[in-house]
């Protein structure tokens, strides 16, 4: 806490696990060739291409499904989240 008016530290949103908002869960299948289109379009910085494959950070993914819709290989499937 800086205790000085409406000034606050950078990047602390990482403490907010917006994955809790998710009702549809993307899962990456074998068709993924790591092209990175999903990563470009992810509004929640929840996709990284690691060792040539799309990897999703479920701590932050809100399940919007843009990645699944934009994937040219149809490699990402959206399924209802089971909690």
């Amino acid at each position, binding site marked *: 806490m800086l205790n000085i008016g409406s000034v606050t530290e950078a990047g*602390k949103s990482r403490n907010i696990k917006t994955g809790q908002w998710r009702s549809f869960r993307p899962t990456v299948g074998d068709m993924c060739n790591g092209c990175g289109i999903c990563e470009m379009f992810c509004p929640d910085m929840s996709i990284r291409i690691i060792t040539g494959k799309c990897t999703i950070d479920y701590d932050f993914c809100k399940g919007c499904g843009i990645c699944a819709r934009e994937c040219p290989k149809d490699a990402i499937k959206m399924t209802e989240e089971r909690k």
Partner: protein
Amino acid sequence: METKKKDYLAPGHRACPGCGTAIGVKLILRVLGEDTIVVSATGCLETFTATYEQSAWDVPWIHSLFENAAAVATGVEAALEMRGEKTKVVVISGDGGTFDIGMGAISGMFERGNNILYICYDNEAYMNTGVQRSGATPFAATTTTTPAGTCSFGKAERKKDMAAIALAHGLDYVATASIAYPRDLMDKVAKALTFQGPKYIQLHAPCCVGWGFEPQETIEVARLAVQTGAVPLYEIENGQMTKVFKVPAKKPALEYLKAQGRFKHLLQDPQCAHAAETVQQICDENIKRYGI
């Protein structure tokens, strides 16, 4: 490929799922890098990124009011100059804060010639307050203040040509971009930074909540806007049109309209058919004017 670029917009922000603006700002910050100060107006971006102790900004960021981002940026730039620092100063503000309430301050900043990149994320209405029309709202769209009804076909006025207003200030670099074309957007941000003085980029950034489509369709809708000619993408350097995003196989405006709830009335109500025709006409005019 591997993800190498560091992101300066942190996850955990509070944007709606499928937010077009969040995609755009992430991409912009990848080009800007860490040596940047971002100034924003009040609006959706500020609301979803700047909660106390939950900031999503990894670069220094400042916001104070709705109508003053350009003037605040002027002060930031002046202070940096006096301190002998070379940090980039970039405004990222919405269409309400740009086309409407912030217009005076923007005009002043452009006229003063401050070395500032002004980027407007254009989601075509006041989304933060619940989808009221702005000067950027396109013709015939329903918003909460331009609802369609027996005496209304939605917004009666055409979209304000803010890029032309920027250009009229003699800016050396003016461009429009869309989140559907990330490479084009990032190239434009990079090129803008090579110009001294004020420059303006207008980024078309669909809003699924305000426009009425599913979150996964954000990029699709953005792409349709470009493919129909509703949103022309171009670049103007030193007063010359140097690049236009060409669409060889143009789509009818109808495809763009039917993808969004805000235009639903144009397709359902025969009394609004003329307005749908006008939208096609606006697209045709854009196609002709910009050589899309």
